[in-house]
C-alpha cells in the first residue's frame, strides 16, 4: 500500500500542471488565512470617500471597493475561507454516504437496487436548489445547515457512479471466486468491491470539492446561501454582475478568485487521478 502511495507521489511530482496547481492552491489558502492581517481594512467598514473605487494602493484597497465602500480584498478573502470550509466538509460527507450506498445497490442488484435507485431518482428529481431552499426556509439560514444540506445532496452522483462501476465489477471472475469460497456479502462489498472502486471514487471525490464550492457560491449568487453582511464569493459575484459595466473589478476580483481556485482544485484532482490510476502506468 505504501509503495502504491510512493508511486503516486512520484507520478504526481512528474506532472508540472498538478504541481503548479498545488502551489497556487497553497498560495491562495495562505493568503486567505493570513492576508487579512496584512491589510488595514476590515471588510465591514464603509469608506465613504471611496465608493466603488478602482483597485489601488492608496488606502490599501488592493482589489478596490464595492458600491458601499467596503474593501473588496478583505471581503474576497473572507468569502474564499467560507467556500473552502464548506467544500471540504460537505465532500467528506458525500463521499462516505455515496460510496456505501452505490456499492450496496450495485452489488445486490435486483429489487433492492431498483428501490435504492428509485430513492436517488426521487431525491434528484427534487432539484438540489429546492432541497436547500426548503431546509433554509424551515430552519432559517445558517452556515451549518448549508454544510449539511450540500453534503446530503452531493452524494447522489457519487452513488450513481459507484453503482455503475460496481455492476461491472460484480460480473468479474474474482467476485465469483469470492462467492464460491463462501465470503459473506458484506465482506465481498467492503473487501473486494470497494477497493476496486478506488480509482473512480478518487477521481470523482477530488472533483466533488470544487463542485461543492461551486454549488455553494451558486446558492449564494441566487441569494439563498451566505447572507449579508457575510461575504461569499457567490454574493460578491452577484454584486459584481450588477455593477459590471461601470465598475468591472467588483465582478472580476471575486470572479477571478473563484475561477482560479476552482481551476487549481480541478487540475490537482486530475493530477491525483492520473497518479493513483494504476492502469495508466
Amino acid at each position, binding site marked *: 500500500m505504501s509503495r502504491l502511495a510512493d508511486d503516486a507521489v512520484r507520478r504526481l511530482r512528474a506532472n508540472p500542471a498538478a504541481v503548479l496547481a498545488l502551489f497556487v492552491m497553497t498560495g491562495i489558502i495562505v493568503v486567505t488565512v493570513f492576508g487579512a492581517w496584512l491589510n488595514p481594512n476590515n471588510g465591514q467598514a464603509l469608506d465613504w470617500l471611496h465608493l466603488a473605487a478602482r483597485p489601488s494602493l492608496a488606502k490599501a484597497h488592493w482589489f478596490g471597493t464595492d458600491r458601499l465602500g467596503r474593501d473588496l480584498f478583505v471581503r474576497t478573502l473572507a468569502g474564499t475561507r467560507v467556500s473552502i470550509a464548506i467544500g471540504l466538509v460537505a465532500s467528506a460527507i458525500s463521499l462516505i454516504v455515496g460510496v456505501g450506498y452505490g456499492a450496496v445497490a450495485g452489488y445486490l442488484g435486483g429489487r433492492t437496487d431498483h428501490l435504492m435507485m428509485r430513492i436517488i431518482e426521487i431525491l*434528484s*428529481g427534487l432539484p438540489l436548489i*429546492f432541497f436547500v431552499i426548503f431546509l433554509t*426556509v424551515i430552519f432559517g439560514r445558517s452556515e451549518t445547515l448549508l454544510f449539511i444540506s450540500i453534503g446530503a445532496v452531493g452524494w447522489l452522483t457519487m452513488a450513481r457512479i459507484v453503482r455503475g462501476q460496481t455492476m461491472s465489477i460484480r*460480473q468479474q471472475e474474482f467476485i465469483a471466486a469470492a462467492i464460491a469460497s463462501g465470503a459473506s456479502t458484506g465482506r465481498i462489498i467492503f473487501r473486494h468491491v470497494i477497493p476496486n472502486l478506488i480509482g473512480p471514487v478518487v477521481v470523482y471525490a477530488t472533483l466533488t470539492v470544487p463542485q461543492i464550492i461551486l454549488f455553494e457560491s*451558486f446558492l449564494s449568487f441566487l441569494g439563498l446561501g451566505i447572507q449579508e453582511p457575510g461575504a461569499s464569493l457567490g454574493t460578491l459575484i452577484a454584486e459584481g454582475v450588477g455593477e*459590471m459595466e461601470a465598475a468591472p473589478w467588483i*465582478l472580476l476580483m471575486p470572479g477571478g478568485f473563484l*475561477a482560479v481556485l476552482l481551476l487549481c482544485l480541478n487540475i490537482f484532482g486530475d493530477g491525483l487521478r492520473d497518479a493513483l490510476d494504476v492502469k495508466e502506468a
Partner: protein
Amino acid sequence: MMRYFFTRLAGAIPTLFIIVTLTFFLMRAAPGGPFDEEQALPPEIMANLQNAYGLDQPMWTQYERYLKSLLHGDFGPSFKYKDFTVTELIRLGFPVTLELGAIALALALFAGIPLGVFAALHHNSAADTATMSVAVVGIAIPTFVVLPFLGLLFGVYLHWLPVADWEPGSIRHLALPVIALALPPLAYIARLTRGSMLEILRSHFIRTAFAKGLPLRTVILRHALRPALTPVASYLVPAVASIMTGSLVVESIAGIPGIGRYLVQGAINRDYTLVLGMVIIYSTLLIGMGLAVDLLYAWLDPRVRPAK
C-alpha cells in the same frame, strides 16, 4: 425490450407522485405564507384571501383538490403573479427555457464527443493536452462567472454581441447564454469520452479489428464508439440537471424570460402552486431523461439488458 421500457415507465409514475406529495406538504410545513407582506394584512382581508385560494380548507382537502386539477392539466392560480395561472406562466416561459436548454445540450454532445475521441486518438500529444486543458477550464469555472466574463469581453469591450437583452429567435442574443450553459457539460462529456475511449482502444477486440486491417475510421465508428459512450449515457441525467440549474442563473443574468426565475422567486414568495408546477415540470423532464438513458444503456451495452 418493449416490456422493459413499460416496466420502467410504470415505475416512473409513482416516483413523480411521491415528488408532488413531498413538495406539497414540505412547502406547507414551512413557516410563513404567500400573503405575508411587510405590513400585516387586516385579518378580514387575510381571511378572504385564504378563502379565495382555498387555503382555509383542511390540508388534506387542498391536496385532493390540487391532484384533481393536476390531472386536468391545471396547475392552479399563481399566488403572487395575480393575473396569471401557473399553467399560463409555464406556457409562456417553458418554450424559451426548453429551447435554450436543448440547444445547449445538443452543443455539449455534438462538440463534446468528437473532442473526446480526438483527444484519445492523439493521446499524450500537444493536441490532447490542449483539449483537456480547455476542458478543465470548462468544468471548473461556474456558469455565473463565465457568462458575465464573456459579456464583459464580447459585449462591453468588443461590442460584438448584446450582453443582456432578449429577442425571441435571435441567434446573436442566444449565443453567449448557450455557450455559457453548454460549456460545463461539453467539457465533462469530452473528458468522459476521452477516458473511456482510451480504455476501449486498449482492449482485445479493438486490437483484433486493427489486426484485420480495418481502417482507423471504421474501427472508431463501428467498434469503439458505441461501448465508449456508456459513461456519456449515464452522465446525461446529471447533464440535463446541470443545464437546468445553470439556466436559473443564465436566465437571470441575460434577462431571458424562461421559467428559471419562477423557481427561486416562487420559493422565496412561498407561491405554493408556482413552485409545485416548477417541481413537476423539472422532475418530469429529469425522469424522462432517466428513462431514455436506461434504454440507451441497454442499446449501448448488451450486458445490462434484462435476461430473456
